[in-house]
């Protein structure tokens, strides 16, 4: 026994093993406990950013539909028919995945329709006394809030799917109250429900079931649709749209990867317990 023996046995950073070192011995592996940072690829971050892109597109899609209907460029009945058919197609596609029975789904759909139809006349005159600027500012803020708290698949404290859904409906009511006829209001609110409640679950299904490349294709399709909608109905939003896309898809991921080098998290076996607050 001697210093040679000490050199042979490597010091491990565990407390349950009896090691032939003194208690205050600090070995080499003391700080190298776990990954300080993950090595991220740029493509991975880009892929992760597609979820946000799709969400931005659906928010802007709502605004585009609103502009289209209020400027009388589109027929409300046509939009309604399109939304209904898209919804039915999506439902058939994801049918196998859903846990609830067909009867329950039909019941939920009927309830939606009845509720929004009953609320339409009330919503029509809801913000008669509020100025247009206030409505615009309110809607912008609410949609940004929706983007911030939406559930993109990660478990972070700020995510609150209930708030994001409800804020989306609130924003759509704000917008819909500016329209003139009952059918217009009904159409806009149905589009909002389809975009904010049904579309995210469809996207989740795509991401989980169909794999990456279908997801990317869906993203491209959505972006193209939104761009064409903006060009047709709300040209003044084009700049904002491209700015948002650029920020979301290129700037933020690049910043993220650049800042990874400054990350200093140390994970060890004796960290405090994290209590899940869900």
């Amino acid at each position, binding site marked *: 026994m001697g210093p040679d023996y000490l050199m042979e046995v490597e010091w491990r950073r565990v407390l349950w093993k009896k090691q032939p070192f003194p208690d205050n011995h600090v070995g080499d592996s003391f700080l190298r406990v776990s990954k300080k940072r993950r090595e991220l690829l740029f493509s991975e971050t880009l892929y992760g950013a597609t979820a946000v892109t799709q969400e931005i597109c659906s928010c802007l899609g709502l605004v585009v539909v609103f502009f289209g209907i209020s400027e009388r460029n589109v027929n409300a009945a046509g939009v309604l028919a399109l939304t209904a058919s898209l919804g039915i197609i999506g439902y058939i596609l994801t049918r196998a995945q859903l846990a*609830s029975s067909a009867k329950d789904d039909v019941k*939920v759909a009927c*309830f*939606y329709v009845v*509720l*929004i139809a009953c*609320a339409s006349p*009330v*919503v029509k*005159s*809801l*913000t*008669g*006394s509020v100025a247009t600027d206030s409505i615009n500012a309110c809607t912008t803020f609410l949609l940004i809030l929706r983007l911030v708290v939406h559930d993109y698949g990660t478990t972070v404290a700020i995510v*609150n*799917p*209930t*708030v994001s*859904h*409800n804020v*989306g*409906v*609130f924003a759509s*009511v704000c917008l819909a*109250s500016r329209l003139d006829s009952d059918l217009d209001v009904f159409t806009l609110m149905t589009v909002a*429900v389809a975009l904010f*409640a*049904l579309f*995210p*679950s469809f996207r989740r299904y795509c991401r989980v079931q169909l794999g990456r490349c279908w997801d990317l294709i869906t993203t491209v399709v959505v972006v193209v649709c939104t761009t064409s909608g903006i060009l047709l109905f709300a040209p003044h939003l084009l700049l904002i749209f491209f700015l948002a896309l650029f920020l979301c898809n290129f700037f933020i991921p690049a910043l993220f990867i650049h800042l990874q080098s400054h990350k200093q998290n140390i994970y060890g076996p004796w960290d405090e317990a994290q209590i899940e*607050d*869900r």
Partner: protein
Amino acid sequence: MLQSVTILQKNVSLSEVNLVLYDSREISESELVGKKFLYEEEKDHGNDIVPYFVHCVQRESRDHETRVSRTRESWTKLLLLIIRSFLVLSWLPKIALGSLHSVLVKRFDYSSSALQQLLLRITQIETLEEEVREQKRTLLSGRLLTMIVVDILTGITVACIISHYASVNDIYTYFCSWTKLLAGSVERLLQWLSGVPAGLKLNQPLTQALSAFFSYHVHLWRLYLELADPLLRSLAWVLVWLGMCGASVQVAILSDLLDLATLHLYCFYVYGARIHMLQISLLGSQWRAFRGRKWNPLKQRVDSHDKGGHVSLTRVLTAVVFTLVIFLLPTTTIYYLVFVLLRVGLNLMRGAMSLTVWLLNINPLYLVLLNLSASNRVKGDIYFSTVSAPEVNKHSVCPVAAPLVLHLHTWPTALSEVLVHAHTDDFPPKPSPDWKLIFSSIMFGENLL
């Protein structure tokens, strides 16, 4: 001068003797002295002989007072006769009024102050009868008698003054026109609310619907007044004659008439309060549900709650209901505020009137007059003052034992204590409003004012 004192054939040294000079009338007439220095038969008052002394004096004076003055006895008998006949006459009305009062309280949750006052007056006269029957002149009986007499005299005076200026028909017509004026101003108020009140921009369809609803109510109220006209006219005669029973009954009748005339405002207030309560509770629960939380009544705290998946009925309902309530909040709040203010104003007037009735009921005039005239009956305190005996100095060749000479004086008790003493359960408690309840019922609309 005192030479010697013997007790039970034994000479007592003069220095141990206390001589007390007192006026027996002062002690025997006062009721309060006996109460303050309470003599109990079983206790040994060896160290505290004042109660025993007071008790002996009062017993002595009672034994001597066998010859009561004739006039006083006859007055007492006459008073007792009047009171008894009144009680016999009012036996049937008392039962009728009592049952009417209990029906009103149970069925309609409305306590009419006129009925309360009449029943209270009858119980007070019953208490008076009990007190007078025992042939004592107590402070309480004096107070009750003065209060009733003052009340009736004031009532008759007021009635005479008013009937000098206007007859019953005129008064009734004036009252009718006043209620019609009130209905007209309520309608104008509702029209003002349906437009742009105070520059506030309300939700037009809702405000017009509410204003139409309430105006229809006012229209119904006017119709009701016109239909009930002959009945109310005959009722007015009855009320005027009832008012002869005293000024407090008149004020109570006035308060009841005010309630009756503003019945529609009370209805509006109830509707507004119910809507407001619904709105506030919806707002609270939906705000929590909006954020994904729920009130846990078991643990009395707010918990997180994810309602069954991404597409669920309650989630959409929450979103829509919350939005609607938020946007309709200013309109309903304005209506509720207006009606609450009206109700609070009316309650203030009612409170002022009930305070007047209470003051007339606990009228302490008799006691105040007794206190001011320093009568013997309100003297309840005793103090001793020493009397210096000048003859001791003259004859003192050698120091001789002399008794301690004390003079007993009585002192009037404080008015508040006298009021507490001359008090029965028939006197109603002071009407004090529960401010916390009032505030919470204005804020949340759960209890009604």
